């Protein structure tokens, strides 16, 4: 259905200026890091933060919220709508916070500062494109840009064998998942003759190729499920989060999941239209398996980053409720998803910032016992961590509650009451392990010194996010409105 010739007017490259700025910033940071021997860390970080800020400004200039109508670019390969732009802003925040966390880490290896910053920005641009993708091939390329940058980042602490292990594991499993994703695209193209996402739903299936459609979408689902960390494709998550340098773990927890969910939602949203019953069962099962397995596994964790990893997986399970509900109430589901992704990313960034503050080195394990006595040694930090944990558990009046409430409300309206009951019971299980961190900080005896590192960036991130959890908990109105308007301007 797309015309074979290239229609230049349909390119509208202005729409992707935010992405271009990040890409240019990435190269500039790389070069800046190389050419300024002495102060490479400052230069690389400075360039990156500048590029991120500029990109953020350009997003505001595109103001999706005043005019939420979607703009397609590159012959419908990309769509720049509210969802894409708000999530892009979220990725920028995630990248910014990870760079903040990484300052001291990079001071230990100044020669690599440029590369680190460049990789973070590259991954960011990949995520931005993923959130905009309307064509499966473009989505695949964006996914690979993101993944390859993350493989390298996961193994960035070359001297730490955990980090190496994380990178290798991530690379092998990730490549495998990419294979699934690509194969899925191939099958769909075979059946439909198009790779445009919207086409998957609209197109008439070629006679004799009917079975390829569910097969293809199923493979796409597996590929994305891997990236987003759904059970049973989640096994890499704890190892990679644990092994990666902490600033990278924070970035992985906050950004890629949102990107994967945006893409998943767009694909499911388009294919549900014709045959909802086809995927509902699969997503239902994935949701139940993901949240239940993750929450049960999290109960037994004794290492902070693994605990946070399992908590991320569990949150991915809850988020699937939103994707499922999208078939019934599209606007409500997108509102809930966007709100949830933003809140969740902030909380996770904050929690990893606390981990970074407690870690002497920037990678490796942080046993939960390191939190013991924190409430005496650093009462402020303990309060911040407590707020983040309660917020992740979804206890009002903190922001995490509204995320859960909107999501469950949408799901109930879509008639998924059984699933919501399973989800809330899961959140009780989850409350136990979040509460355990608080118990360790406040209630367990032990005066052994918990040293915190002097890391102003991480401290700032901790305070900003925990403050946000309170402010957005008491006054979520503006963010709800924003999410709502994003949902209104969906393609």
């Amino acid at each position, binding site marked *: 259905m797309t015309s074979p010739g290239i229609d230049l007017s349909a390119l509208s490259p202005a729409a992707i200026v935010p992405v271009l700025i990040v890409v240019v910033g990435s190269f500039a940071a790389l070069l800046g890091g190389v050419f300024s021997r002495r102060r490479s860390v400052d230069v690389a970080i400075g360039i990156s933060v500048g590029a991120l800020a500029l990109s953020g400004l350009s997003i505001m200039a595109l103001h999706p919220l005043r005019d939420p109508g979607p703009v397609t670019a590159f012959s419908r390969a990309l769509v720049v709508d509210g969802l894409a732009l708000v999530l892009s802003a979220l990725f920028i925040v995630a990248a910014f916070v990870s760079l903040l966390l990484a300052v001291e880490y990079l001071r230990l290896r100044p020669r690599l500062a440029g590369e680190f910053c460049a990789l973070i920005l590259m991954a960011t641009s990949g995520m931005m494109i993923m959130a905009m993708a309307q064509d499966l091939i473009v989505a695949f390329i964006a996914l690979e840009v993101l993944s390859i940058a993350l493989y390298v980042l996961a193994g960035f602490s070359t001297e730490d064998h955990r980090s190496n292990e994380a990178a290798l594991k991530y690379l092998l499993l990730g490549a495998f998942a990419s294979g699934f994703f690509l194969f899925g695209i191939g099958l769909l193209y075979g059946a439909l003759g198009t790779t445009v996402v919207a086409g998957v739903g609209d197109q008439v299936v070629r006679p004799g190729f009917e079975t390829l459609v569910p097969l293809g979408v199923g493979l796409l689902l597996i590929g994305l499920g891997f990236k987003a960390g759904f059970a049973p494709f989640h096994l890499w998550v704890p190892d990679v989060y644990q092994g990666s340098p902490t600033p990278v773990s924070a970035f992985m927890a906050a950004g890629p999941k949102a990107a994967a969910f945006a893409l998943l939602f767009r694909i499911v949203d388009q294919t549900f239209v014709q045959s909802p019953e086809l995927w509902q069962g699969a997503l239902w099962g994935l949701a139940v398996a993901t949240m239940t397995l993750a929450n049960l596994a999290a109960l037994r964790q004794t290492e902070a980053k693994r605990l946070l990893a399992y908590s991320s997986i569990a949150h991915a399970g809850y988020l699937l409720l939103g994707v499922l509900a999208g078939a019934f109430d599209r606007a409500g589901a997108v509102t809930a998803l966007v709100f949830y992704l933003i809140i969740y990313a902030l909380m996770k960034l904050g929690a990893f910032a606390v981990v970074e503050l407690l870690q002497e080195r920037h990678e490796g394990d942080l046993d939960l016992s390191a939190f013991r006595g924190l409430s005496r040694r650093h009462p402020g930090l303990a309060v911040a961590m407590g707020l983040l944990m309660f917020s992740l558990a979804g*206890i009002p009046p903190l922001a995490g509650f509204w995320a859960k409430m909107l999501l469950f409300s949408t799901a109930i309206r879509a008639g998924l009451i059984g699933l919501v009951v399973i989800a809330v019971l899961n959140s*009780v299980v989850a409350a136990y392990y979040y509460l355990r961190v608080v*118990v360790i900080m406040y209630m367990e005896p032990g005066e052994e010194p918990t040293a915190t590192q002097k890391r102003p960036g991480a401290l700032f991130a901790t305070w900003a996010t925990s403050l946000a959890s309170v402010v957005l908990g008491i006054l979520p109105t503006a963010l709800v409105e924003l999410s709502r308007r994003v949902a209104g301007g969906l393609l």
Partner: protein
Amino acid sequence: MGVDIGVGFPVLSVMVAIPVIGALACLLATSGRRTVILSIGLLSTVATAFVSALLLMGFAPESVRPDLPFFLTERYEWIPTYGIDYYVGIDGISLLMVLLTTFLCVIGVLASWRSVEERLREYMVCLLLLETAMLGVFIALDLILFYVFWEAMLIPMVLLIGVWGGQRRVYAAVKFFLFTMFGSVLMLVGILWLYGLTGTFSVPELMGKAPIAAQAHAVALFLLFGVAFAIKVPMFPFHTWLPDAHTEAPTAGSILLAGVLLKMGVYGFIRFCVPFFPVAAGVLSPYMVWLAIVGILYGGACALVQTDIKRLVAYSSVSHLGFVMLGLFVWNVQGMQGAVLQMVNHGVSTGALFFLVGALYERRHTRMVSDYGGLWDSMPVLSRIFLVVALSSIGLPGLNGFVGEFLVLIGAAESAQAAMGYWPVTLAATGVIVAACYMLVMYRRVFFGRITNPKNEGLRDLTRRELVAAVLLLFWIVALGVRPGIALGLSEQTSSAWLEANAARIEAGTHGSAGGGETR
């Protein structure tokens, strides 16, 4: 119509805000000295109590009607997209609960004067935030606002138990948290489901809409809400968190747990469960009555064998709250009024018991009955006050406990003529005897006899500060015993309006399909 106090003076919001301001003041106080923190705490709770007393002026109990149940309402948009409002107001029952809460919070601060030795600043912040959340629960007229306050209470409470509690405090705190949260999240499902069916979170609106809109799922919804409230009350099979939490909590925590938090469960049934799902409530009320009776007897039986004074008082709460639930579910004015009064009575009496036990613990650092004996002579003031409080808890005529239990039993007897036979009222009355057994036996062993343990000699009697708190509590114990009308008058009109409205709702409901309970 209610009389407005001044023009545009949002008295309820001010009341809820004062403890938060106090908590902020504690956090920001440059001096962490004990007296500074304690003064801030006392000042904020007293100010809150004062403002709550102002409510009496704005509330005209006799003008409550089924169609105009709430007074002093304030309503502001909060999250307009989802129709969530900051919507508060009171009726006679919530007014009583608010007064009880602000009163017990003052007692709570007085009880913490010396017992809290470390991290007093954080302690006071928790206590004050807890007060705000508790008050919010009783005045919220928007389901989401209610839920926010209801859950927000968890955080300070779990910290109070877990940080400043007794030896098994962590176990007790975690158990309390998980039990409560289990119920709460199911209630959240109920709230959201109800929203899906009716499109509103406003309680007054739901009282009109819910009985009809939610009819097909009334039993399921009743249970989703009811589990949360039954855990809080606690009703019989859900009570196991209570003895641990009450025993391990610091004195102020126990006072507020028993005095206020348990009432929230009952309040939830009164405010939400029954008016929203009247038909289901009617269908389920025999079960509720029997669970209440099991609670009365089981709680009493457990209290009989306790060796720990605090644990004994905790089990006595299970028994007393059984009376409250019995009164509520016998569906007549006597029962209902008895239940409401019994809530206040139990708050005051059990609050006083925990306060006195706390005073004993401060001096001897043990809660075991067997460690005491012969205190009658060594602590004359405490032992006499304790006697009055214990008798009020048993239900001696002339003290407050009697009136509430008596009304409940009358209510139960009256409904016996209608439907359920005399077994419930007979068994419940047995509970009163059991109460006398455990309370008096405990009292005898602690206070009478000769001093066998030399540590019990020369104990310091109540200090002046403790005496102030004890006298305040005693005042209400006697006042409510002699003139229960001061409390009953506030709630009478509300109770009968409540019964009338629910009868009308059942009437309207049963004319439709007779309460199916199938879930999707």
